[in-house]
């Protein structure tokens, strides 16, 4: 009978579910993967980045961002903003042009693709005839000039993309008045650059790749000046007054040319090879910026001496006697200069140099002495060193937040104090409801603390564990070595450093207690560091303890990596988290699980061999437990293979994280082939039951501290729970001495229970529910009055989550009460599980705890507590994206992050109540006529209207205001929420808030479709663990 009463058909519950759960992919944090093009609108102060996967992203002031995706999924080659308009044109590598525009929709701006266009030549002409190489949006905003490989320049009307054939500039017309010896068809072969005259809008400068430069009069349709360059041309740049222009060439030289009415075929004024006399690489782009003091800034990309510095990715800035070649660790995609955009201004006065390198964005302040870098508020390179793990902490107390910020600010003193120069648009999203921290562990042994409260993922503080250890390379080795007499004057900039000195330093697990400021960090070589937040620099000795997890198991020999060597004597630590104790696991295998209890001052750690408990107050090891199965022949007799495979799998997993995107996005047109191959060699899967003899059964997957009824139902006591890969759960009863005798008496532990799950699937989560079936609060949560104290009267329950099942047991006598079999019914396995609190969007007083689960298929499921009923399921990550699934981290309030590329986190939300997504507005000026004078007037007006908030002082004010707001949020969340809600309702009406999400949804669906199209039927081996 009961099978007809299926859960979920209760209409009341169904309605409640709609109020509680809702899935949205809200924003992408980090640096776009494989950027390929850069554009900038000086008028709107917006920057656009295109990627190889066909995405374009617009960034303005912090919080202002837009994203669009080309359907074609092709590389974006060029991005050009239509002057003074909220429109931009993109050129893809399939030679298609796309017109995008920002339109206001229900109070917020949105980016939409308006038109697409592919230039078509006459029938029979080669494809090169219409291959677009240069794009010039004319300031009249009516036409686009398209330079092609054939040398023809086509004129296209906007926004309709109609080709105006009568206005095409053909090479024949250009060559009419050229001296005989230059007059061959080949000199006009490929249009390299098109530049509009800064003063006279009816003239454009045309640069052909063989060196010929022509000034073309658009009104009379003829060439007025010819500049006969002899070198292969790379790019052109006008001087502001239009009296001169500069050309750069493939031999590493640049040339200045005069433009005057008396000489129609002038000789170059000056020809310079800045890094000569030896052969140099091409200068691919150049800027010539005038200043008040008369000395121009010459900024160019490349031009390094070919033999000795040909492999550098550099941009040189020359200003009088000052010259610096900024040296980037990855390829420079493009760069631009931010200067005074007022056309009436006499000088450009460059303020900042913005460089898009392949792996990071670097902004250099040209106004301050020494040209320091500007700390970017977004587009952080998450992958400066590969991300190895992540940890999210919600609702950080203000005190800790401020201390972390102050520690971080001490690290950022070398940054410029200049306010972020790209500040277009207005962020109208409500202030984030709480302070959230995202901690990422990296391969180089650092932990980065990110402000994950809002749309901009911003680096607050960076912690390095390297100082504790002796490594081959001195960390200060690769710092800037700026010698006075060194030539070229290279200076390393940026933070991207893919090379790890020692992979053993890699961070594997992080656990931060937000109340006490204790942080535990564990790494690849079995190192566990416990740290404390200190606001001052300090020099002290790090205590060192060994934990032998093997406990003289016979016949076992570790053939993996050595443990890290520690520094003897006191070590100097900068302000921030400072390690005070190091527990070294033996054998030094990867730490696979970590738990910290700041109230009891205990830290538990587990590896593939066992787990241990350490008392960091007394600095004493309490106990260790070996989880190796004696019948695990592989572990006992074949240590070599075991170690190798573990090491290998780790390596491969990281490599895969790095590589997966490259391969997935680069594939083109190979779909048919691969599916044929699949049919030739079918994939098969072995059906075999798990047995105890499987290797890695001892692998400790999860550790959990709980104050619960372990022995009998009358007395509760501290306990430690551990779950292994072989489906075993161990429970230890702990005796922690009271606070006054904490230092005198030892912490004692004894094993109280051992549970072997019959299905033997890896245990991925352990949780104790109190008498009200609420998960036990975190340590110190009750002490800080942030949680109700747990119900210690009713009977507690134990929830064990394995990869295959959810199972509730009674306590203290462990007997199975309830279960949900996931794998047996659906064939999916649990990869990540967290308890999340979901609040209703309708009523403020209702919230409930549920389990948020990510499966190996990339689905997210919400499962109710304590009855283990599946509530809802959303597809989130492609199942082939193993690195994405492995990197997923849930927050305590129903949000989550996962890596969509090595450098980008996608943020998603499962909650109707907590939603962090960009919501911003870009004011579009009313363009009534094409009168340029009129235009500049409106520009001034809009700039003035946006005036406040753009000056540095006001910016600070804003921040302080938000700070106060957040402090408030901590004191009374609900009050602020109501406030936010009421502003939402009052301002634009409730429904306004929703429209942006369907857009996101369609976008994500589109991405999924594209992915599906790409991968086809190809089944990719699932990556287990």
């Amino acid at each position, binding site marked *: 009978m009961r099978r007809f009463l299926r859960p979920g058909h209760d209409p009341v519950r169904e309605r409640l579910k709609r109020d509680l759960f809702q899935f949205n992919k809200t924003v992408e944090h980090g640096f776009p993967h494989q950027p390929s093009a850069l554009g900038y609108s000086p008028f709107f102060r917006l920057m656009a980045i295109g990627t190889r996967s066909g995405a374009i992203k617009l960034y303005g002031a912090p919080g202002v961002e837009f994203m669009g995706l080309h359907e074609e999924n092709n590389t974006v080659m060029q991005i050009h903003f239509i002057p003074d308009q909220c429109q931009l044109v993109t050129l893809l590598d399939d030679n298609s042009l796309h017109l995008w525009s920002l339109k206001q929709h229900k109070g917020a701006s949105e980016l939409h693709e308006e038109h697409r266009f592919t230039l078509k030549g006459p029938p029979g002409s080669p494809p090169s005839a219409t291959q677009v190489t240069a794009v010039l949006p004319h300031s009249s905003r009516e036409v686009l000039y398209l330079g092609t490989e054939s040398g023809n320049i086509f004129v296209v009307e906007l926004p309709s993309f109609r080709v105006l054939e009568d206005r095409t500039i053909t090479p024949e017309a250009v060559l009419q008045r050229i001296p005989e010896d230059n007059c061959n068809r080949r000199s006009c072969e490929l249009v390299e650059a098109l530049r509009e005259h800064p003063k006279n809008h009816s003239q454009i400068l045309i640069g052909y790749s063989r060196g010929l430069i022509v000034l073309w009069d658009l009104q009379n349709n003829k060439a007025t000046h010819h500049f006969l360059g002899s070198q292969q041309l790379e790019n052109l740049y006008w001087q502001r007054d239009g009296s001169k222009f500069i050309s750069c060439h493939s031999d590493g030289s640049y040339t200045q040319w005069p433009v005057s009415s008396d000489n129609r075929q002038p000789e170059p004024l000056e020809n310079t090879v800045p890094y000569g006399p030896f052969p140099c690489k091409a200068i691919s782009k150049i800027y010539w910026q005038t200043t008040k003091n008369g000395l121009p800034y010459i900024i160019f990309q490349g031009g390094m001496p070919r033999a000795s510095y040909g492999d550098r990715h550099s941009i040189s800035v020359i200003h009088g006697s000052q010259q610096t070649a900024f040296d980037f660790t990855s390829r420079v995609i493009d760069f631009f200069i931010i200067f005074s955009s007022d056309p009436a201004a006499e000088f450009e006065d460059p303020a900042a140099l913005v460089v898009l390198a392949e792996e990071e964005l670097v902004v250099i302040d040209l106004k301050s002495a020494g040209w320091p870098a500007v700390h970017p508020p977004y587009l952080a390179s998450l992958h400066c060193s590969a991300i190895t793990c992540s940890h999210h902490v919600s609702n950080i107390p203000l005190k800790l937040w401020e201390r972390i910020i102050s520690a971080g600010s001490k690290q950022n003193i070398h940054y410029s104090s200049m306010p972020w120069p790209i500040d277009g648009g207005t962020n109208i999203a409500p202030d984030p409801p709480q302070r959230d921290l995202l901690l990422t562990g990296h391969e180089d042994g650092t932990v980065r603390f990110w402000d994950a409260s809002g749309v901009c993922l911003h680096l607050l503080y960076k912690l390095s564990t390297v100082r504790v250890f002796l490594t081959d390379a001195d960390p200060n080795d690769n710092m800037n070595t700026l010698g006075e007499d060194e030539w070229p004057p290279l200076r390393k900039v940026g933070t991207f450093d893919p090379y790890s000195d020692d992979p053993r330093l890699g961070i594997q697990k992080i656990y931060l207690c937000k109340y006490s400021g204790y942080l535990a960090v564990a790494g690849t070589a079995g190192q566990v560091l416990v740290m404390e937040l200190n606001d001052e620099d300090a020099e002290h000795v790090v205590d060192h303890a060994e934990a032998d997890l093997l406990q003289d198991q016979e016949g076992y020999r570790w053939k993996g990596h050595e443990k890290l060597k520690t520094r003897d004597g006191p070590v100097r630590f900068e302000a921030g988290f400072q390690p005070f104790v190091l527990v070294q696991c033996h054998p030094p295998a990867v730490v696979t699980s970590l738990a910290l209890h700041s109230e009891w001052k205990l830290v538990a750690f587990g590896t593939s061999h066992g787990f241990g408990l350490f008392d960091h107050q007394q600095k004493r090891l309490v106990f260790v437990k070996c989880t190796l199965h004696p019948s695990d022949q592989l572990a006992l007799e074949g240590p070599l293979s075991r170690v190798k495979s573990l090491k290998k799998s780790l390596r491969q997993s990281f490599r895969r994280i790095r590589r997966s995107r490259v391969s997935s996005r680069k594939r083109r047109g190979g779909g048919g082939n691969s599916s044929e191959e699949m049919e030739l060699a079918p994939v098969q899967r072995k059906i075999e039951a*798990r047995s105890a003899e499987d290797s890695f059964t001892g692998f400790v997957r999860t550790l959990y501290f709980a104050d619960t009824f372990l022995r009998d139902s009358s007395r509760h006591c501290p306990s430690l729970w551990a779950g292994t890969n072989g489906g075993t759960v161990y429970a230890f009863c702990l005796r922690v001495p009271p606070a006054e005798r904490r230092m005198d008496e030892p912490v*004692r532990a004894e094993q109280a229970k051992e549970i072997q799950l019959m299905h033997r699937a890896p245990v991925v989560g352990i949780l104790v529910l109190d008498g009200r079936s609420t998960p036990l609060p975190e340590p110190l949560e009750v002490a800080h009055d942030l949680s109700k104290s747990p119900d210690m009267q009713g009977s507690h329950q134990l929830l064990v989550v394995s990869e295959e099942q959810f199972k509730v047991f009674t306590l203290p006598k462990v007997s199975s009460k309830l279960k949900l079999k996931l794998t047996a019914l659906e064939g999916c396995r649990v990869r990540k599980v967290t308890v999340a609190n979901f609040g209703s969007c309708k009523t403020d007083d209702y919230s409930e705890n549920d389990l948020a689960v990510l499966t190996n298929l990339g689905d997210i499921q919400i499962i109710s507590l304590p009855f283990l009923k599946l509530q809802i399921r959303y597809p989130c990550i492609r199942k082939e994206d193993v690195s994405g699934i492995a990197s997923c981290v849930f927050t305590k309030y129903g949000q989550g992050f996962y890596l969509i590329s090595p450098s980008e986190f996608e943020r998603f939300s499962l909650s109707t109540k907590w939603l962090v997504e960009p919501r911003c507005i870009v004011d579009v000026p009313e363009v009534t006529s094409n009168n340029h004078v009129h235009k500049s007037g409106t520009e001034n007006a809009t700039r003035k209207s946006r005036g406040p908030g753009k000056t540095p002082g006001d910016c600070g004010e804003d921040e302080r205001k938000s700070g106060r707001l957040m402090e408030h949020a901590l004191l009374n969340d609900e009050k602020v929420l109501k406030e936010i809600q009421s502003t939402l309702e009052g301002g634009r009406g409730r429904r306004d808030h929703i429209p942006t999400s369907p857009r996101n949804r369609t976008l994500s669906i589109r991405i999924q479709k594209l992915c599906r199209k790409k991968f086809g039927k190809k089944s990719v081996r699932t990556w287990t663990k």
Partner: protein
Amino acid sequence: MLCELGKMQLGEKKGTEEQRHECDSRALKSQFGAEFRRFSLDRYKPGKFEDFYKLILHIHHIANLEVMIGYADVHGDLLPINNDDNFFKAVSSAHPLLRVFIQRQDEVDYSNFGTNTLSRKKKALVTLRNDNLRRRPHINISMPHDFRPVSSIIDVDILPETHRRVRLYRHGCEKPLGFYIRDGTSVRVTPHGLEKVPGIFISRMVPGGLAESTGLLAVNDEVLEVNGIEVAGKTLDQVTDMMIANSHNLIITVKPANQRNNIIRSSRMSGSSGQSTDSTASHHSLPTSHVLQNFHPDEMESDEEADIVIEGGLEPQHIPKLHSLTSSSLSRINGSSLSHRLQRDLVLNNNSGRESNGNIHKLLSSLKTDPRHSLVIPRGGIEEDGTVITL
């Protein structure tokens, strides 16, 4: 060779049995209410079953009783001896000791033979089946219960004739499940005509594996359901995980590639070829299919294991100073005490359950945990592995 006999005390049966090695043909009254005899047989010329039967009746002085003779095979399962063939098999499997059990014919619970001989909690489903069987007058002509089931065809009455639902019993069997599955396409009849749809197929059988030995599954059979859940729309990996998660009691519904051996419902006979004793057996025990026909995943819980919980009232495991004392020795001690505890629990469980079966279970389990005996321990059996005890 030696033959060891345990004779159940007739009438009353309870208490644990501890096997003792005693000298030839000497009776030993045990305190637990069973008797043991030890005698020798010629391994190579064991003789006929008839003679053996008489010998046993003679040794135990129970000449006028109908008894059922069983033995513990290498897997630790209780199997019957009732004809020359299995007698010979029993003798040849002894190494060097053969344990023979004698029970009164009318008290024999046939369901005890074969699978799951080990003390496992059997809940509603199995009990139901046993009751059915017990009520039926026992026919001695052919004894389907004398075989250990490794597989059965179930739900013949509700499935289309083109489909076959096969249940594989993995418990108490040393054999691997032993088959592989792959992706493929199959043709379905739909309202729009024939359509090609993706499907899951058996791609390979491991020689000597359970799947092959049943003869009920074959390469290229299309897998339609796993434990009552349709596989349509699921990926190969999902189906793999489902099968593994259900491996202790795997029920797969296939559309055999070879449709000539299908069961014709009106007759009681299977097809001419591909017929195995097992399938015959399942026909005779039709009640089985009745019980299972309305199969629902939840109900299968009955067949499911209970997780093992070891409640330890252990001496504190404590390290006074930094790893000056490794607790391994301690944990070893704990381990063994835990295992004793577990054994006791299991025994108690059985006792409280069904008394009549309890005895044999206890005998077997005590046999198995005794390390001196050379019986090969089955996968599903109790093993003592230091600290961890597995079922």
